């Protein structure tokens, strides 16, 4: 009896092992086919991919990566006039070299600068993505004609970041379709964060400091970290607690020297 039971257990285990192996072979096969013939897989799983969604899937990761970099460096890809804090080059958006004086604003239009930097950072990826779009559709049997290099425009507004890619092109197969531009919309709270940063800079340049708890009253989802450093600099991190997006920048304003500051 015991032997029989053991045999059954073994046969069940063997069956499971076979199922697992078959499943693995199928998955591996799909992966291999996907890499060799991506269009076939897309067709099989029935994805309704449009040029718009294609570009979005190609460009969105690049946009998000760029935002990540910019948001830790005060909105600059390669900042000048920054403080090195926790491995980040945090741009001074307001700075004074002197003691007892309010800072001079270094970047008044923070949103516009952020847009500009983001546009420059993703431009290359946009061009690559557009090339990839053309190649992909040509493989699918479309005849694609396009104009010169695509131009990109980034607009940050409340709740979203819009990336407009002006890339006139015509797709022809059974019918002919013409595109003028593609609009990629990414949900983001960055606009609010940038406007709060502007408000903090206003406080710093006018009064030499800011009272961060004032913002709590109006922005329930906001968290502001304010760290004062030994040289009188202040590093701010403005964060949305829901989306976890943040924006970091520095200021040096109304600094008091150690002692009487005679030698300082």
């Amino acid at each position, binding site marked *: 009896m015991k032997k029989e039971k053991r045999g059954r257990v073994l046969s069940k285990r063997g069956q499971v092992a076979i199922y697992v192996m078959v499943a693995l072979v199928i998955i591996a096969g799909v992966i291999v086919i996907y890499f060799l013939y991506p269009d076939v897989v897309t067709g099989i799983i029935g994805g*309704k*991919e*449009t*040029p718009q969604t294609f570009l979005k899937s190609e460009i969105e990761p690049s946009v998000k990566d760029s935002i990540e970099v910019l948001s830790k460096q005060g909105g600059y890809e390669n900042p*000048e*006039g*920054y*403080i*090195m*804090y*926790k491995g980040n080059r945090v741009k*001074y958006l*307001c700075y004074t*070299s*002197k*003691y007892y004086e*309010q*800072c*001079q*604003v*270094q*970047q*008044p*239009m923070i*949103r*516009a600068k952020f847009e500009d930097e983001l546009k420059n950072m993703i431009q290359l990826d946009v061009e690559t993505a557009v090339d990839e779009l053309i190649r992909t559709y040509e493989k699918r049997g479309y005849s694609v004609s396009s104009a010169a290099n695509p131009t990109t425009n980034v607009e940050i507004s409340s709740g979203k970041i819009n990336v407009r890619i002006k890339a006139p092109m015509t797709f022809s197969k059974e*019918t002919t*379709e013409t595109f003028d531009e593609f609009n990629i919309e990414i949900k983001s709270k960055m606009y609010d964060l940038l*406007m709060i940063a502007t408000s903090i800079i*206003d406080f710093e*340049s*006018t009064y030499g400091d800011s*009272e961060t*708890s004032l913002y*709590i*009253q109006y922005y*329930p989802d906001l*968290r*502001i*970290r304010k*760290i*004062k*450093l*030994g*040289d*009188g*600099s202040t*590093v701010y991190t403005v964060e949305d*607690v829901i989306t976890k997006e943040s924006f970091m920048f520095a200021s*040096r304003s109304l*600094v*008091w*020297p*150690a*002692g*009487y*500051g*005679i*030698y*300082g």
Partner: protein
Amino acid sequence: MIYLIGFVSAGETVSMSDVTVCCEKTNSGLYCQDVREEDCSPDANALPTACASTSFCKPGFCFDSVEGTCLDNVPQMVCNNEDGTWKSEMPAQCELGCCVLGDQASFVTLTRCKRLSSMFGLETNYNKNLKDELQCVMSARADEKGACVYVANPADAQPTCKFVTRSECESESSTSAGEEIKEKESSENESVLEEALGGEEKYGGTLLSPSDAEFHAGLLCSAEELGTDCGMTKETICLAGHEEVYFADTCGNPANIYDASKVNDKRYWSEIIDKAESCNPDASNGGSQTCGNCNYILGAVCRESSSTTGRATYGDNVCADLGCEDGKGEEQMHGESWCVSPGADKVGSKYYRHSCVNNEVLSEPCAEFRNEICIENTISTSEGDFTQAACRVNRWQDCTAQKTSEDCTNNDRRDCIWLDGIEYVLMGAAMNGSTIDKNSLGALREQVKAAGGLKEIPRGACVPEHPPGLEFYGETATSTATTEGTATTAKTGDDSLGVCGQANAVCPVKYEKGLIGGEWECVEHCECLPGGELEQKRVQLCKSMGDCGPKTNYIGVSGSGKGYEVKEVENEKKKD
């Protein structure tokens, strides 16, 4: 070294004694700074005057005509380079007024109001005569809301509904109806390319005129008598700009505040119920499973359910408790702040302001060198005490210049305390480094004489209430750096000797010796001798001046030396 671990400053700094030029752009890339000439970028303008006196770096107001924001203290060239409008005096565009945005308000410029209104799809409602922010916020009243019933698709007999204000119903019903139809039809489209290309042109939908929409004030879209396709659900939503959890109807419209006991109550799904008449109106309702009447002031707001926020009986949203637990295990409300001063007044220590924000305790250090102190105050509320703290400047600088207790303890002007019974005037000037300056001592005698004798001079010392930190260590953190962020440090001196030296004092001890020999014996001010009763008082005085005297640092380690010295110097000896 400790100084440089956390950060490296790449900006130029100057001391009070440096000769500076106005530099258009510094080596590290900062604009319009008064720096040493060698810190100015070779390609930039540099004038031997203050930046405020130059044309290109003159600070003024910079107006952003896109966002409608206005910043003060912006150098002219910085503003112009960014396509802003610069004025030395505040321009009219920067004047603030009250911008009403639906049921909310914002105290902003007219341009900003237009920008915000367009962003939220509202008509601009701006009152430039309202000059008080609080009044502005109070003036924003919710427009009358109700059910806006319309027929989205003429082929479909059943009307649908949107929960909006009367004005929105009248002005926007046509647009919203059109959009809805557009969405429906385009989703049915089979052609991938057509969907992307032709959607907007082909699917305009049937636009309804405003007269086709009927507004029912005070009613919810789920009211049965309206006969719309919007019905009751067990779903909830959070609304932007609102703190409460709301029920949502089958059309996605908000209904009344979530109340688990009313989930099947038809009356509750028909008429708008005021917040004050909803469940637990006087409590925060943080973490409540059954009531969505969150009160933000009391520390709760609508959030998506999670393991941290808790879960409601119905729906995916809950009143999240935003409170925190401080280091002592005490509950703190959202928005509360309090002072923490570990190792106060020890070398290297500083004050901290802790605050509870969104369920997390944030630690905000006050300025280094105890140049700022933390102050706090508590007010009593119906929900208990509410504490607010702030970092503010430590006004210690002129303490030692005060000669009377009254001036010293004038808290409106300075943060000092009067140490009674510290005998003899502070005679820092009588010391020159580690030796007594005999000339100064002579001058001191004259001062004592002019005051009418030693007894007429106030017996006490005015010292900082919060002793400041001093940058006494070898190298200062003053740094000059390149754009690559490489910091170089340069010793520029420190004034710790000047601060601590003010506690130095000279005590004229008088010795006598008999005419026919014998030893010198102390006869006057003998308490000043080493080990005498005055020594500890003077040590206390020394420590009160700042990072002076026998102190420990913020991690409890004592200094390498004793921290003070009592010297005996033979001044004048009468011959035997």
